């Protein structure tokens, strides 16, 4: 299968370039750790005094941070693609016999690997700070980061290839990502919200994904909340990759 070989080539090249510019990887890592250290302790008090919080602060907060990492860590990869496009790398690869899907898959795979490392470090840091959850739930949490990352990275590349301008991409991403993040209960569970806000957030798949990971962190694998989260994650990944591949295959992109 040449698509696997070509994806591997694109992946190794992209990874090499990322490792050579480790500053972004470090920043991406530092961000969730800062949240953990500087924001986590605030939640401990709220969790203890408010029955709507849903239990132990770390079990609520760490799943939120993991999903946030998957979303934010991957959403901005499009900027890198625009600079690659500007230096002619994308065009150059598009006139090789390599499948155009592999140009996307290789890059997304690099982003997923980076997120897996970042997610693992986040989980270990949280364990050190007092998180207690079943080992399989931690694994599912990191897996969710990777899958959401694949979805958002793929969409980010697709949009970047369409707009081809940082000035257009930045407001577009912020305009979408920020409300989606706020309506998903990343920092505080949506059970604390007034009725109308809860209704609005019900339409957000990310909210259900976070709820699913939180349920699993409580040790609850078979419940409909957990399964719903897994199904939605898989749907988002497939959808995101399909959109991305389509854009990469289109003639004018």
């Amino acid at each position: 299968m040449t698509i696997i070989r070509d994806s591997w080539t694109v992946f190794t090249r992209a990874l090499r370039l990322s490792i050579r510019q480790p500053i972004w990887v470090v920043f991406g890592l530092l961000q969730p750790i800062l949240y953990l250290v500087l924001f986590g302790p605030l939640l401990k008090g709220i969790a203890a005094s408010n029955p709507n919080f849903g239990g132990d602060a770390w079990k609520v907060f760490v799943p939120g941070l993991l999903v946030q990492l998957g979303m934010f860590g991957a959403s901005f990869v499009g900027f890198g693609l625009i600079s690659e496009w500007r230096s002619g790398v994308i065009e150059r690869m598009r006139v090789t016999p390599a499948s155009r899907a592999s140009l996307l898959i290789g890059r997304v795979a690099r982003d997923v690997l980076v997120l897996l490392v970042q997610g693992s470090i986040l989980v270990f840091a949280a364990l050190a700070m007092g998180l207690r959850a079943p080992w399989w739930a931690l694994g599912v949490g990191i897996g969710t980061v990777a899958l959401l990352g694949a979805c958002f990275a793929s969409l980010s590349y697709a949009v970047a290839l369409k707009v081809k301008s940082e000035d257009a991409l930045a407001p577009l991403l912020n305009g979408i990502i920020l409300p989606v993040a706020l309506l998903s209960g990343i920092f505080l569970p949506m059970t604390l919200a007034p009725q109308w806000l809860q209704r609005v957030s019900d339409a957000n798949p990310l909210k259900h994904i976070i709820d699913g990971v939180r349920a699993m962190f409580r040790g609850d694998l078979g419940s409909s909340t957990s399964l719903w989260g897994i199904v939605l994650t898989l749907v988002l990944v497939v959808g995101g990759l399909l959109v991305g591949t389509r854009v990469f295959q289109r003639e004018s992109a």
Partner: protein
Amino acid sequence: MTAILEARNLSKTYKIRSRGKGAPTTVEAVKGVDITVNAGEIVGFLGPNGAGKTTTLRMITTLLDPTGGQATVAGHDLARDPIGVRRSIGYVAQMGTTDPSAIVGEELVDHARLYGIDPKVAAERGRALLADLDLQDVWTRKCGSLSGGQRRRLDIAMGLIHEPKLVFLDEPSTGLDPQSRANLWHHIARLRDEYGTTVFITTHYMDEADALCDRILIIDHGEIVAEGTPEELKRRVGGDQVILSVAPELAARTAEVAAGLIADSHPEAEGGEVRLIAADGGTALPKLLAGLASAGLDIDGVAVRRPTLDDVFLTLTGRSLRDDVDA
């Protein structure tokens, strides 16, 4: 001679939806061009910015689907076998090919891997190509640290790593200083002479097309307006230009007398200059100067200019190529 590229009636139209109401307007970027390139030729595709050069090139290189027409590139049908086309051509885009933060050798090897070439073979080939292009010592350097001329030659090496029979260079010398341009031309000529590669080059520089190309296609407003060797095209202008410097008050009278001396010379007086056309400037000059002297007209200076491709473009389109070139 065998054709390595044959395009028939290739066209591209875009629908542009204007803001607000109103039907979308159709823009014909390329209006059915025919292109034939024979194996071993260096062919220039010349035209002002926006004439349709890059659009045509992007269609032939499988980056853009044509609206109409067909093409056979290196024996592969463009519509039915785009992968076959990609395998046999090299394409060096105007915007470059390499990531500034990547290492030269790694970019070359990775690019070759996308063609299914073994990394060891690719590394050997890459080093040999760089040496041929006077880039011996850049293998481990970052692409972004190379000079403009070096970077351009690296682009060409990238385009040649899979040993294509046909290579497309889109505006290769844009942005280079005169020395780097001359050096680049030397290397492009060698591609054909030493590797037997067929080269198709787009440019809006007349001197570039003149210096490099065996044959030139001139495109304007999406149509090919002329085709031929540089010499053939220059002959179309009708002859050499003779420029006489005179005192401004004598210019009109000088033009009048010159018109009587040399048939069909269409003299034009402007300020202290009289310009006229002569089939052969060298033989017309003595007759012209003697005639003007006997009419009592003093000539301060004289110049004979051979026609350039700029003149060809002006004759064919009524516009100077330079008018369209934005800096």
